[in-house]
């Protein structure tokens, strides 16, 4: 099994979720994160002073999938999260030794 961390633009979440659903990935965990990178943060104004906010709001999607699903999942995320603009985000794939479903105790892919 592999864990896919996808860091995307917040307003793309629904598209990505639906896209993953279509290829049968029906579980995921998301969190609000802030990103730093090429994409420059926006300007804010405070009593006549203008300053740049370094960190940009992003959504991180964590989804654990069976090895054979990885490429498909990556492809799907790429397509659905892509806007062609700087800051679209990244996808990282990391190994997973084991997965357990707390409710049943099932292990491995059956737990997904």
């Amino acid at each position, binding site marked *: 099994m592999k864990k896919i961390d996808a860091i995307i633009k917040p307003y793309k979440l629904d598209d990505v979720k639906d896209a993953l659903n279509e290829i049968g990935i029906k579980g995921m965990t998301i969190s609000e994160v802030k990103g730093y990178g090429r994409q420059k943060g926006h300007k*804010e*104004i405070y*009593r*006549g002073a203008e300053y740049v906010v370094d960190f940009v709001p992003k959504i991180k999607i964590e989804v654990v999938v069976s090895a054979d699903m990885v490429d498909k999942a990556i492809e799907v995320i790429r397509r659905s999260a892509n806007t062609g603009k700087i800051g679209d985000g990244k996808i990282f794939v990391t190994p997973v030794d084991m997965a357990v479903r707390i409710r049943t105790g099932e292990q491995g892919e059956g737990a997904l």
Partner: protein
Amino acid sequence: MFVRKNQAALFLSALATFAMPNFSFADQAQAIDTGSTCWMLISTALVLLMIPGLAMFYGGLVRTKNVLGTMMHSFVCLAVIGVLWVVCGYALTFGSSILGGFVGWNPDYFFLKGIDDRITNGIPEYIIAMFQGKFAIITPALISGALAERVYFRGYIMFVALWFLLVYCPLCHWIWSPDGWLFKMGVIDLAGGLVIHVSAGVSALTVALFLGARKGYPKMIAQPNNLVMTLMGAGLLWVGWFGFNAGSTLSSGLDTARALTMTQISAASGALTWLVIEAIAFRKATALGFASGILAGLVAITPAAAVVKPLGALALGAFSSVICYYALKVKMILKYDDTLDCFGIHGVGSGMGVLVLSFFIRESWMVKTSETVGYTWTAWDQLFVQLKGMGATILLSVVMTLGICYLVQKTLGFRINEEAEVLGLDQALHGERGYDFT
């Protein structure tokens, strides 16, 4: 009724409108004017509303870790000054002059012992005392904007108590007490341009310089935790200001209506002006800028509300936003940390109002004054008087505030230690968190 307006002005308005309270009994000393009494009751409530309003305005501008501490800086004045006022504040301000007129004193006012059934101009004196007390409460709270995010709470309490006794009480006596020397000189200060805003603003600057900047300032970017609350606060302040200015006529008549009207106009004009300035400078219009413009307009009209006319109110509000906006720019150059701009707005904007009002005074008022003084009274004559008042205010504020700062620092401690500053006031001094939305 004489407390808040110099006699010429009062006299005139009386002539102009017969606006004497309508008594129901021969014995005037005892008769109640239920209408004016009602307006003073509600004005007291409106000025009270300004304390949460100010706490919200300031509280929204600091970082999350300091939101409660900053709000408490306003709220605690309700308790500390609220009690001191009853004990000796009213006596020190509105008693007859002692110590060569430095302050006043009246044994009847000590613990408000002797006014239980006293009625003046149809209004129970109790309510006058309470109304005046609200001004004493809000003034030190204004200063808290300059020392936000970096003082001990105990030190702050000692500071406001001493500042009230050594700056507010004398100044209020000089300018608003019938036998105050600046009052007699004819200084115009309806609702506290000098007594409240210039004194608070100048003291704020003094404290800010004494304490030094917050850790990381100015590199540290501003992170207002809740501009939404700041906007709410600005709204409540505007509402409360109607009681603040119009209540200061100590009646419910034509002058009252005039004061409320000019207050409304100046606030609107100030807000609009700040909006325009930002639109030109950034092609954006910030909520904080708009709120700052409201305040700029309100503080500018405060001394002038009963003597100027609509055009004057429009002008004062607009000028105030322009001059305050640039005052904030200057701050960024000089890099002193008047954290929430108490000096930059209250000091500068209201100070401007105190002086510039001279050129917008109602004709009839000038005529009347000329008669009183026996020669043609010009705007320049008035400006000169106003300048004297401002000089005295600044001098007293700076000297006393500096002294108090040193005293507090040496005794209870004023500037907070670095660890607590990093941790935040809420956790370090109050053992609480402002929000817990998890």
